[in-house]
């Protein structure tokens, strides 16, 4: 059952072979057993989950169920969920219980009737690539407990990889769905900016943040995305487009598909065995009938520096609301307004968040704005133009998700620039607002352990269904995505 696809779970629930309460209990038991070590969830509320499962069973019995009604999922703790503590990985929100639901929560839990198993761990305010910046402690990678699961959606990745949830939500600002998916052998999709509403999703960098599914297969991701996406008038950047069935093209053959390989992705920096796995995947796509062409993204190298101007700039402003006045952490000791702010924020935020607030404040300051923020916005446009030119020559772009497999906990924590470079292949996609996904494409050996390698597919705007099709066809031909960590 724990390896079942969403489709299989849906069928089992529909056929009454299992109830949502039983299924939920099964996962809650696994969470109780595995989570104390893995630390993938920061909040579990069995009673609440079981009550939701009961309601889902009733809905199924009443005959007005959605395909996913009663299917459990893990929610990244960045989504506000009414009645649930919502921490965003920060001490700042340690006691914050949301009075309202994020749009994603409404869609998945209320409209589709899915059952939340709990809130997953994450880098603080989604700032990190290893889940080590979480106030609630690091998350272990189920493939090697001494390694990181990636970030910022590391808790969601570890939860699904360890089968503590059949599927999870994540958010991706610079790779936070795709990189942990790669490091934990999952399939994850970051949709086109504006496809999933950001209402109730705690903002890191508003112009880059986008929620998406993290699951065991492209097919599962397609089903979850279909239930998550859609226009939301409460988010002004949400796109008013017709509702899509993202699974509609899964079975399309790939003959005639043009896959572009950006030469900049394959220049250097990629680890040899990661490169090998990616090359093997390219060969597999050839067999499936795809044509491989070389493309170029000449401004790719500017994506990390541009991102580390724009994202912190927006974050510095987005995080100003955490001031200890209305909710969230307030320092016990203060003498005046300024010390209330200073002490509350000094205590409530971790080091990485502070670093980014400082960077963001700096680049927006008078006299620096033109040199940093405006320049970065120009780079952003150039990167989008690069992609547009590339998509004139190919249907999807293929490359690695991450330059290396999961690194050791603590290995990069002291060197922020090294940490930032682990998102070197994913960041440009957010800057351009394009959809991108990661899927398992093999393993590399490290210290006698098998560690997953992720393959990244990038599509043109609104090509999610096509990307999922390209991933699904690969997953029909390979079994990388079906492998699971040992000892669980």
């Amino acid at each position, binding site marked *: 059952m724990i390896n079942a696809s969403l489709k299989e779970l849906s069928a089992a629930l529909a056929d009454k072979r299992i109830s949502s309460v039983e299924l939920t209990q099964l996962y809650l038991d696994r969470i109780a057993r595995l989570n104390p070590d893995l630390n993938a969830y920061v909040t579990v509320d069995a009673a609440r989950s079981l009550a939701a499962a009961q309601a889902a069973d009733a809905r199924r019995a009443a005959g007005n169920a959605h395909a996913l009604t009663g299917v459990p999922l893990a929610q990244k703790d960045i*989504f*506000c969920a009414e009645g649930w503590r*919502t921490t*965003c990985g920060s001490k700042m*929100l340690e006691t*914050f219980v*949301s*009075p*309202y639901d*994020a749009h994603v929560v409404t869609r998945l839990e209320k409209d589709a009737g899915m059952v939340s198993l709990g809130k997953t761990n994450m880098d603080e305010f989604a700032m990190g690539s290893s889940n080590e910046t979480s106030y609630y402690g690091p998350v272990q990678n189920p493939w090697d407990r001494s390694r990181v699961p990636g970030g910022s959606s590391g808790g969601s990745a570890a939860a699904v990889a360890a089968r503590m949830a059949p599927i999870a939500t994540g958010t991706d600002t610079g790779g936070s769905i795709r990189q942990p998916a790669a490091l934990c052998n999952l399939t994850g999709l970051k949709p086109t900016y504006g496809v999933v509403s*950001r*209402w*109730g*999703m*705690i*903002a890191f*960098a*508003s*112009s880059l943040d986008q929620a998406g599914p993290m699951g065991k297969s492209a097919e599962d991701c397609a089903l979850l995305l279909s239930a998550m996406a859609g226009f939301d*008038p*409460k*988010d*002004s*950047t949400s796109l008013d487009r017709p509702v899509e069935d993202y699974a509609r093209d899964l079975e399309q053959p790939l003959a005639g598909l043009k896959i572009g390989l950006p030469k900049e992705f394959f220049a250097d920096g990629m680890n040899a065995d990661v490169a090998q796995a990616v090359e093997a995947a390219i060969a597999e796509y050839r067999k499936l009938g795809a044509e491989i062409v070389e493309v170029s993204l000449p401004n790719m190298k500017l994506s990390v520096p541009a991102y580390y101007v724009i994202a912190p*700039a*927006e974050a*510095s*402003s987005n*995080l*100003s*609301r*955490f*001031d200890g*006045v*209305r*909710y969230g952490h307030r320092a016990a000791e203060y003498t005046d*307004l300024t010390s209330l*702010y200073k002490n509350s924020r000094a205590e409530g935020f971790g080091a990485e968040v502070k670093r980014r607030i400082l960077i963001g*404040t700096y680049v*927006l*300051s*008078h006299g620096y*704005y033109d040199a940093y*923020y405006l320049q970065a916005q120009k780079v952003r446009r150039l990167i989008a133009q690069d992609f547009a030119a590339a998509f004139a020559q190919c249907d999807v772009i293929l490359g690695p998700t991450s330059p290396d497999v999961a690194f050791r906990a603590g290995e990069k924590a002291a060197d922020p620039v090294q940490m930032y470079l682990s998102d070197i292949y994913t960041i440009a996609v957010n800057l351009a607002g394009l959809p991108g996904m990661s899927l398992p494409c093999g393993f590399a050996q490290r210290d006698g352990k098998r560690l997953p390698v992720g393959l990244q597919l990038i599509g043109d705007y609104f090509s999610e269904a096509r990307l999922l099709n390209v991933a699904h066809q690969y997953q029909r031909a390979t079994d990388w995505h079906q492998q699971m960590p040992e000892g669980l």
Partner: protein
Amino acid sequence: MQWEVVIGLETHAQLSTVSKIFSGSSTAFGAEPNTQAAAIDLALPGVLPVLNRKAVECAIRFGLAVGAEVSPRSVFARKNYFYPDLPKGYQISQFELPVVVGGNLVLQVGQGENAYEKTVRLTRAHLEEDAGKSLHEDFHGKTGIDLNRAGTPLLEIVSEPDMRSSAEAVAYAKTLHALVRWIGICDGNMQEGSFRCDANVSVRPKGQEAFGTRREIKNLNSFRFLQQAIDYEVRWQIETLEDGGKIEQATVLFDPDTGETRAMRSKEDAQDYRYFPDPDLLPLVISDAWKAEVKATMPELPGEKRARLEAEYGLSAYDAATLTASLEVADYFDAALAALGAAGKAQAKTVANWVMGELSARLNKDGREIGDSPVSAAQLAGLVARIGDNTISNAIAKKVFEALWNGDGQSADEVIDKQGLKQITDSGAIEKLVDEVLAANPGNVAEYKAGKEKAFNALVGQVMKAAKGKANPQQVNDLLKAKLAG
């Protein structure tokens, strides 16, 4: 040395929308603290702003009313600073690309003989949200925060530094105040803070082209304070300069109790607001079609109406300006003319005189607004009609007006009838009175014949007195003249 004063105003007009600029919360004034502050207004984690279409329409109305360019594309920006009544830690405003650019406001400065017209250029007007309120009293050394006002839509209207005296600044503020009410975008309630001004004031030696260093007087919420604050500030700046001092750029507050301004912060500790485009909001795009749609709902503007009153009714420029100084006065005048029907056009000047004279004086005396005048426009029209057809004289009309004001009658006709105020126009009756007065006042007659004009007036007065004011004054005049000449 001769000094020239230079003033520019920044005005915050609270827009008359039902809900806030980026949330669905009510904007009604006076509710219990924090009862009109929902998730967005509280800046809970994860909330997002959605622009209120009505607020944009208000900005379009304003742009059209002042002949400005309504930007086809404008951008909301975040103004970042920390304050407890600013829940997000930033204010959503517009910075580099405002919704309204340019425009003019034509003012009538001064009264009567000294009145002159002045055109003040507008720099821009932009949409933004208001902050909440910090309540420093009643919390025993702590500060209370009321977020009901947070997110209330404001239009900040910025003038060029075109004004040269506090009188011009006040005329500008009054004209602007009347305009925003006229076009229905702001209730103009200054006590509730719906309309407040910041004044940038500097002085320079007359003839010098470069501006002096300015100081900004914040948050003036009455025309009187605006005048007092500028007058004080100008005196202070001139004295400082004449004493060999220098003006430092600063933000100052006006204290109505002392009538003085004092510096709140200097340029050195001016905040860096780190403006940048708000990524939560798309650029505001206003199509020509939308502009046209709004334009179709615009009332006749004060300037247009003024020109029409002059052309159609032959009113003087001053009268036309006075009657269009506020929407309420203009509406009252229009309603009175409408009640007069076909006779309206001929009586327009008389109506104008009554509105600007007796009615205005009486309203002032009782501290009332024309909107709640005890004498309605229809009642005044009835009164003017009776003056027009010689039923009553002007002097009697004042009596009738007073009676209507006090509620002693539903209409002028009723008052005239009840109090027997109908004018005597029977020349036989008047002649009899004239003869009696001439016979009884030989002294005045002799004086008049000796060339003393005043004596004639005394005789007229005697006749009117004998007629209890009801004799037709023109007939009395004519008859007296004829008899005295004979």
